[in-house]
């Protein structure tokens, strides 16, 4: 049996999947990136291989993606998150024409052509406003785990208007609103709204062509999904595997190579890419 792996080393979390020859998911793993991207990559790889009940030698081809893709010392090939998220999204929702990926530190909008190819993309990676990190600030200020933010925000009745765009100041704004007696769910809804409008403008930058598929860690957040639906005024595909979409896309590329038997061409050394 042929197995391949996709490893997505993000700014906040490292994700990995193993696919079998039929492109079925044979294992998946996720890990917080703490200190060291290379070791996080190695660990998540070990984990995913174990979860598939395999050993590293069973993996025929590994594609690395994500912000830290050049720090993956063991991969065969690197592909950008843009191509990987697109690939993963199209594999699950073949009619996808626009992908929105909200990650921990950046947001991407990708336009897909009729053959599933990437046509255009836009990203926000200069300022942490409007990224998953904005929610991280909320999670810190409210002392709630990330997974509870969305469900709580959905209960809002009178969302507050968040005025700061800076992620750092957002934290104090949240606390300020709470101190003034606003309910956490209303504050959270405001935070979500602020991200949703920023991301919507990024999506419009590549043209809002349906169907739209929402990927990345923040796609696990139900409030974000529903707000984006409202703001974009269109339905949204969300996969249960949304968080792994980059890793799945990477693994699909790995599968292409493994099937074709083409050798890997790992580019660029670790030093070449500044953090």
């Amino acid at each position, binding site marked *: 049996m042929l197995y391949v792996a996709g490893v997505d080393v993000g*700014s906040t979390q490292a994700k990995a999947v193993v696919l079998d020859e039929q492109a079925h998911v044979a294992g998946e793993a996720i890990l917080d990136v*703490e*200190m*060291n*991207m290379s070791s996080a990559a190695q660990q998540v790889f070990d984990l995913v291989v174990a979860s598939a009940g395999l050993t590293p030698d069973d993996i025929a081809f590994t594609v690395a993606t994500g912000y830290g893709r050049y720090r993956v010392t063991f991969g065969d090939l690197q592909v950008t998150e843009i191509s990987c998220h697109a690939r993963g999204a199209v594999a699950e929702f073949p009619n996808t024409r626009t992908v929105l990926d909200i990650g921990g*530190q950046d947001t991407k909008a990708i336009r897909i052509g009729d053959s599933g190819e990437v046509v255009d993309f836009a990203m926000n990676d*200069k*300022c*942490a406003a409007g990224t998953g*990190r904005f929610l991280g600030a909320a999670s810190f200020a409210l002392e709630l785990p990330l997974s509870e933010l969305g469900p709580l925000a959905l209960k809002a009745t009178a969302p507050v208007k968040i005025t700061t765009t*800076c*992620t*750092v*100041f957002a934290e*104090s704004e949240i*606390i*300020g609103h*709470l*101190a*003034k007696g606003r309910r956490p769910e209303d504050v959270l809804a405001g935070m979500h709204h602020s991200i949703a409008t920023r991301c919507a403008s990024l999506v419009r930058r590549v043209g809002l062509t349906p169907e739209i598929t929402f990927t990345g860690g923040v796609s696990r957040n139900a409030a974000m999904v529903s707000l984006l639906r409202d703001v974009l005024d269109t339905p949204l595909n969300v996969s249960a595997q949304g968080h792994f979409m980059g890793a799945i896309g990477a693994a699909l590329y790995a599968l292409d190579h493994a099937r074709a038997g083409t050798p890997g061409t790992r580019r660029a050394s670790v030093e070449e890419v500044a*953090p």
Partner: protein
Amino acid sequence: MTTDILVAGIDIGSTYTKAVLLDDSRAVRATAIRRSGYKPSAAASAVFDDLVANAGVEKAEITYISTTGYGRYMVPFRHTQITELTCHAVATSHHFPTVRTILDIGGQDIKAIRIDDQGRVRAFRLNDKCAAGTGAFLEKTARYLGLETGDIGPYALRSTQPVEISSVCAVFAESEVINHLASGIAPEDIMEGSIVALGGRAVQLMKRVGLEPDCALAGGMTHNPAMVAALESKLGAPLRLPPHGLGQLNGAFGAALLGLRRVERLLADGREIAPPSGEDAVKPRRWSTYVPASAAASASA
């Protein structure tokens, strides 16, 4: 010298609320400080209570109260309010008549102020949009390194080889800090690197108001010796710090000084000191918030 005049200055900052009590010889009779929290008016009353208690006087003995800081309008028992820029200018010039440029690094903003020989504000600039240029930047790094605010300075002073922090976003700087830690760089070098980065931005702001010597630092950052050193080296000149630990109290001190001036003027003119007039004078109509009759009608319909 009689001391039957007592003037309080209260500075309601975004992070700390500070108060100073002066008598008519301009001597500091008491000070007080507290975290501002999220109810500035409550913080102001609490600090005022502390102040009178510290001075061992009754509230009724206070002649005049002036407020400053971002919460200056939120104190109902004030006689007047003055902006912190004016207060810093007056206070600094009182201590050091030769100072022409003042820097105040606060938790959520930075201010650079150029003043003249009379202590009047001539030009100023602030930065408050992006956390990368404020005290919050240091606090974030410190939090990541497990340091308390008060420890930042002494800790960073141990640095021998400050590392360069190149990110322009405070959030991304955090990843940079993590990377540096991972590659084995000493935490004090990282802390010092952040201080140098922030110091550079601060000096830039000072230049943008037309930096003239002498320079002074005010606000909470005066407690941070590493920041003082970094600024001095960037400026290539010494920084004046308000004496007697009045650095963080500089704004409150200035507010009290200006209050005292006002009292002296009123008394010299033989006028009464009116009771505190906390509520704002009636403002003219605000067209910006005017709701057209038609809109009001349709909203209620």
